[in-house]
């Protein structure tokens, strides 16, 4: 192993359509590089869970404080759309796992197909989400155009929560459920978009032949990220849609 940086460790490409991988200069072996990045990524996933942990803590706290608000609010969500999105994400986790497997076995075309299907799943999820948000907007439960209008001190009213149907009229602080619903699903939605972007980046690298049996780490890590995004939704779905 050279320490003057003149020659580095190279993992050969399994075929002419692939590119060899050069191990970063400060690692001695490919295994060391693989394990380091993997450990680092798991730690990063832990921080993601803790970040959402704050939101889950807020959910449980206010669920405990205003149980009727959460019961009535949850009834206004469409559990069918939620279940549809849950199925879409679960299926996309399967396609992502297949994509990782294909990369590990140097099957370029299959990797591209499965990653592509995963991106489609992400897009489908966001489309369903859009229609859910739109329905909340139309019923005056989360009026997106009024989100940043500020608090009306004189009328003691929130501009983004008008509740046209009076569905939340009999419970205290009806906006609270929708504030938490919006914050949690929006931050989750941003993660879905980031995940889709990362998978597109993986597809680009796959097309160039960068990932193969000798080196598939980035595919693996993006796969882990996608499973986490899925996992968080699996908790969000019952808490927001089914608990009532």
């Amino acid at each position: 192993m050279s320490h003057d940086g003149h020659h580095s460790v190279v993992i050969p490409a399994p075929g002419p359509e692939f590119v060899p991988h050069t191990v970063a200069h400060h690692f001695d072996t490919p295994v060391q590089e693989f394990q380091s990045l993997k450990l680092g990524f798991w730690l990063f996933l832990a921080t993601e869970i803790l970040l959402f942990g704050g939101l889950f803590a807020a959910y449980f706290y206010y669920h405990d404080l205003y149980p009727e608000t959460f019961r009535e609010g949850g009834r206004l969500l469409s559990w069918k759309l939620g279940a549809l999105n849950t199925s879409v994400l679960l299926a996309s986790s399967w396609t992502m796992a297949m994509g990782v497997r294909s990369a590990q076995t140097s099957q370029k075309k299959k990797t591209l197909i499965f990653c592509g299907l995963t991106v489609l799943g992400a897009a489908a999820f966001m489309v369903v989400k859009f229609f859910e948000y739109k329905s909340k907007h139309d019923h005056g439960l989360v009026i997106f155009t009024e989100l940043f209008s500020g608090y009306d001190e004189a009328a003691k009213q929130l501009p983004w929560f008008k509740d046209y149907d009076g569905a939340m009229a009999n419970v205290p602080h009806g906006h609270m459920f929708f504030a938490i619903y919006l914050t949690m699903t929006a931050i989750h939605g941003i993660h879905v978009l980031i995940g889709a972007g990362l998978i597109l980046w993986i597809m680009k690298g796959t097309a160039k032949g960068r990932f193969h049996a000798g080196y598939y780490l980035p595919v693996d890590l993006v796969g882990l990220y996608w499973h986490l995004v899925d996992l968080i939704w699996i908790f969000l779905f019952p808490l927001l849609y089914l608990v009532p």
Partner: protein
Amino acid sequence: MTTNVPVIDAHPTVPGLPKNYLNCSRGFMSWAGTLDHKRIGIMYLIGTLLTFLAGGVFALLVRLHLWEPHGMLFTNEKYNQIFTLHGAFMVFLFVIPAIPGALGNMVLPLMLGAKDVALPRLNLLSFYLWLSGAVLATLAIVLGGFDTGWTFYAPYSLYTNQAVVTIGLAIFLLGFSSIFTGLNFIVTTHKLRAAGLTWFRMPLFVWAIYATAILQVLATPVLGITVLLVAFERLYHIGIFDPRLGGDPVLFEHFFWFYSHPAVYIMVLPAFGIISETVSVHSRKPLFGYKLIAFSSLAIAIISFLVWGHHMFTSGQSTYAMFAFSFLTFFVAIPTAIKEFSWVATIWKGSIALNSPMLYTLAFLIIFAIGGLTGVILGALNVDLHLHDTYFVVAHFHYVMMGSIALAFFAGLHHWWPKMFGVIYDETLAKIACGIIFVGFNITFVPQFIMGSQGMPRRYATYVDEFHGYHQVSTIGAMILGSGVALMVYYLVASLLQRKPAMENQWGGVTLDWQTPTPPPLENFYAPPKVTHEVYDYSTLDLKTLQRPVS
């Protein structure tokens, strides 16, 4: 000459061999785009020292204002902004990032015998996140400032008509800078140790940084989501912390302190790590209770997650929770005391060299004993009800943050300065500055203990006449302290200009960071080091060969 490594000639005399990390490449981009942990460490050092000086200027302004009971310089609103700036700059831009970012980056890979940290790109990203946070924080001053105190307590932080969202975003970015640094150091410690460097042969600075990193990774995301929620609350009024909308401001305090108490240990554990190094090297004696110190760092890291409620004894919690928090707070004093006693026992019968790093270390040991014990006093429920939000608390945490952490940082800075730059500062001036800082610090904060115990509330722009004398003594002390720091900055900068060469191994250290050339080459070691001896084994140290001047 070696205790930890087989013979490596650290002084290749053949011309044309690799240069050191400072002169191996030139130009702005060779620094701004560097992936070398040592250069990133230097950039952190410059950045955090500048914010420390800015925070220090704010502190002096606060003290000057309090020279007179009705306040001398500012309106009350302006005063609120100035002490908030002092707190926010010192905590988020200096104390949390300084030791891991500057000294940790510089020394940790050297101590492990690694060529770099495990994730160099992420390391550079951490620095730029820090820089963006610093720029945003400065921008927040321009945009009208912020007057919430560094704690951003709701509901005031939700209502005040100032740049809270900007500083909130700054803290979010600084948080991720801290997370990525911690993540990097955990991976580096696990995966990049030199051959033969077992966990119990690692220097205690590495153990301390490792324990810190666990806290950075596990606690900081909670701060991230908390400031994000405050920003959302201000932008579109979700109501989570806003009592007008059914929210609970005490929930903010729980979220905030769930991070910010562990953050106290994110700040102090690296300082402990530095002291473990300096106390051993400058006493030329293996550390007393090596494993106890290592495990006490981990114990502190774990217990620190369970004591946040002691910041909220007057905020309304259940009596039983307060009882548990109080007990756990006493409990955290045990591993901390293990460290203090171990350091003192290390000095005992050592070959003590009163070099300037050692003087800073001794100052730390004295001040930290006071800072730590007054914390135990505040952990007692009934006493805290009297002392809460008084100058007693202010004095307590300044004994820890300024007197302990900043002085440990100075100790480490003086200890590794010759390693970093290959030059040595004026040792006489360094000793004088240390004395001035120690005296000035105590003159500043002893009166604050006294007036705090008599009921002087913190954060007030004015005060009753009976505290006039204490405040004036405190202000004089702050000026002395400030002049000591100014002297330090002077001789450190002067040392870079005068370029008086340091020794290869200035203090006779035996850990791997002292087994590389001074300053180290780009990839730290010419051949991969192999550790065959226990850590802090001074038995075979041959000073004559080690202390050759840098060529």
